[in-house]
């Protein structure tokens, strides 16, 4: 192994953008979490339970209607939250910085035109070409391409230093943060915009997860109280973060919300019971020095058996207060881990952990101000990730 010569560069989180089923903006999210609010819809997509997007005025972050028309919902939500993150970091319109800002987006994509698909399926199979030629909108293709969330953020907000899109469900969000941090820590990037978005109010997406019987059905329950079968409720929402080197932040007078100390990831094969618990234990040892009182924010999805395996890990670390994001936000897939890191940074900046909201007893109230929060992102099917987010003294 080659040696690294230099001490890693310290990375700060200096901007957060959140647009979810609960709210938009940081104060609004904090209030909603403290009030244990949950925005859940059990009827529109019945029997499936989803967390619908809170009302947003897209014009505020995407001023051109023409831009909005070029995007499907997941791209609009993400472009909106990316704009909030840039606002939060005090960078909106700062062309000098935006044009050298690196961007890593964790993306799904493939948002279908449901009526076109239905029209094709109701026509004879031999009419496929004709129907698609006549019915597909050219702009839809661009709205389906995974890298076009990043492309739209570049167009709307002017982030153009670099543009990388990672795919692969939950772990794409972990790896996006892992690579962004590695580049800043290694001195090859000064500042990065990292995040993801999901439109969870999509029947084509529900269908993909219904193949594997992953969707929560009929009744909503908090994430650790969904019984042996479990299930996740797709959530709409987006989380973006501005991460920059301490020196870069200080030079422009930006205040840190928190420090992103480490991001680690692995992919266990999940062949035997306990594989995920073991993988999480291994990642826990790689985060760096942890205090006894560090808090944990987990994106546990509700899907089984992975959620039970993660609960076993959490019980083994019961001295650390836990909060699970899926109870309030549902499962935002690629955005799961960026959301967890965003809420960790928000909590650290407010010197408090938001209210517990869990009848199973895994989440316990605490009045202690956290100075370290570990974020966990285990995929519903593959991949495990963890981050250590710390208060900047």
């Amino acid at each position, binding site marked *: 192994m080659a040696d690294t010569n230099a001490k890693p560069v310290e990375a700060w989180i200096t901007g957060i953008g959140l647009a979810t089923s609960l709210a938009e903006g940081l104060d609004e999210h904090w209030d909603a979490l403290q009030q244990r609010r949950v925005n859940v819809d059990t009827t529109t997509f019945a029997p499936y339970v989803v967390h619908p997007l809170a009302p947003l005025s897209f014009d505020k972050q995407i001023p051109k209607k023409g831009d909005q028309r070029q995007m499907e919902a997941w791209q609009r939500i993400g472009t909106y939250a990316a704009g909030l993150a840039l606002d939060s970091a005090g960078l909106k319109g700062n062309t000098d910085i935006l044009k050298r800002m690196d961007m890593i987006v964790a993306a799904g994509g*493939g948002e279908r035109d449901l009526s076109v698909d239905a029209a094709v399926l109701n026509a004879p199979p031999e009419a496929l070409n004709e129907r698609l030629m006549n019915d597909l909108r050219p702009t839809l293709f661009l709205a389906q391409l995974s*890298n076009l969330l990043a492309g739209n953020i570049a167009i709307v907000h002017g982030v153009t230093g670099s543009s990388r899109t990672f795919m692969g469900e939950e772990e794409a969000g972990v790896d996006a943060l892992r690579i962004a941090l590695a580049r800043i820590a290694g001195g090859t990037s000064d500042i990065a915009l990292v995040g993801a978005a999901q439109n969870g109010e999509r029947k084509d997406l529900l269908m993909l997860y219904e193949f594997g019987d992953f969707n929560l059905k009929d009744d909503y329950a908090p994430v650790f109280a969904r019984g042996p079968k479990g299930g996740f409720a797709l959530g709409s929402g987006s989380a973006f973060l501005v991460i920059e080197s301490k020196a870069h932040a200080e030079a422009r007078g930006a205040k840190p919300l928190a420090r992103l100390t480490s991001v680690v990831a692995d992919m266990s094969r999940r062949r035997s019971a306990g594989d995920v618990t073991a993988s999480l234990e291994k990642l826990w040892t790689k985060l760096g020095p942890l205090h006894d009182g560090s808090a944990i924010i987990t994106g546990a999805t509700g899907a089984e058996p992975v959620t039970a395996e993660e609960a076993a890990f959490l019980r083994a670390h019961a001295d650390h207060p836990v909060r699970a994001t899926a109870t309030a936000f549902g499962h935002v897939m690629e955005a799961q881990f960026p959301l967890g890191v965003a809420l960790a940074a928000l909590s650290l900046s407010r010197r408090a952990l938001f209210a517990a909201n869990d009848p199973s007893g895994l989440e316990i109230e605490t009045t202690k101000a956290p100075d370290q929060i570990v974020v966990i992102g285990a995929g519903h099917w593959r991949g495990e990730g963890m981050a250590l987010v710390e208060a900047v003294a």
Partner: protein
Amino acid sequence: MSVTRDKMGRPIVVVTGMGVVTSLGAGKTDNWTKLTAGESGIRTITRFPIDGLKTTMAGTVDFVPVEPFSSTVLGEKLADLATEEAIAQAGIGAKGDFPGPLFLAVAPVELEWLPRQELARATGANTAIDYDALLRVSGGGQFTQYHRRFLFGSVADHLAETFGTKGSPISLSTACASGASAIQLGVEAIRRGESDAALCVATDGSVNAEALIRFSLLSALSTQNDAPQTASKPFAKNRDGFVMAEGAGALVLESFEAATARGAKILGVIAGCGELADNFHRTRSSPDGKPIIGCINKTLDDAGISVEQIDYINAHGTGTPENDKMEYLGISSVFGERAAKVPVSSNKSMVGHTLSAAGAVEAIFSLLTLEHQRIPPTINYEIADPSIPLDVVPNTARDAKVTTVMSNSFGFGGQNASLILTREPV
């Protein structure tokens, strides 16, 4: 002790294994022979009905059977083939135990029409089939395999398990620059000292009716269907679009130090990588060419070399009116008077545009150019475009002294990435 770090003090990153599959064939030998003979892999599509389509040809890989056809399955199989060849050549690790991470460039995954139609049949209805009807039959275990298959991470998951790569595999898309981005991520991981080796794979098996129609609706594809082998005409005046194609490329990257220590044969050096995003338009380049110029300059800076040292450019050269014009603007702006003298050729004239795989496939062809000291041609170049006065190595391969190659990749969504490859460490 030999020098193992570059001018910037970073570990030198070398290539010790390569594998490639295109419409020309499987493997480096077959591909190189046909590429330097100026053969085309483009043919009329037989995989699905072509009636009513504006474009009816593509560079399909028909010799890898997938029944029933699935683009995701084909992409996975092509990646397997290329990776097997690359790892065998590198002789690294043990079978199923590759000592480093995986970076995979892959087309965005979506449920395809055959399974969607299978679901429609399962509803038992002939009319009024909608997503509610599909959803009612989706669960219960009958279609579990489609969850596994159509996750975005599914191809990487398969490769990671098959070849035993380490850590969390990264699937990425930077559209038609994806292959170059996968290599860039591997280079960065080795330069940071995170690993001594990385497996960089790029694959695309996207020729299905819907994907073809989507590109067709954007007017991006050539419609010169009557003579498929001559349809792809990069840099020629009568070019009218790109030709979709399939393929895969795989590269084993290692630190020079680790490769030398285990006595591996060095196939070439990834001397520099660069990227820059363009926010002018979703599918078009900024008319001033600045993002492409900036991308090329960043790549030269990263490699620490000057334009005088580049003696061949492996162009993105898609054959769309827009791309080739903008690529010329970028090259001529950076290279100045030298732009007319440096050979610039496009492999896409023969293999078509392998989309997510193109950056890696063309990096491999660039390394083969260095190895054989022979430049593959741009075929179908019968009518020169006076607004693009480049030496495109027209129609016939050329022996040349080549020490340093630049390979360009550009994609929808403002993606620009370039690589600089050399025979020896610089």
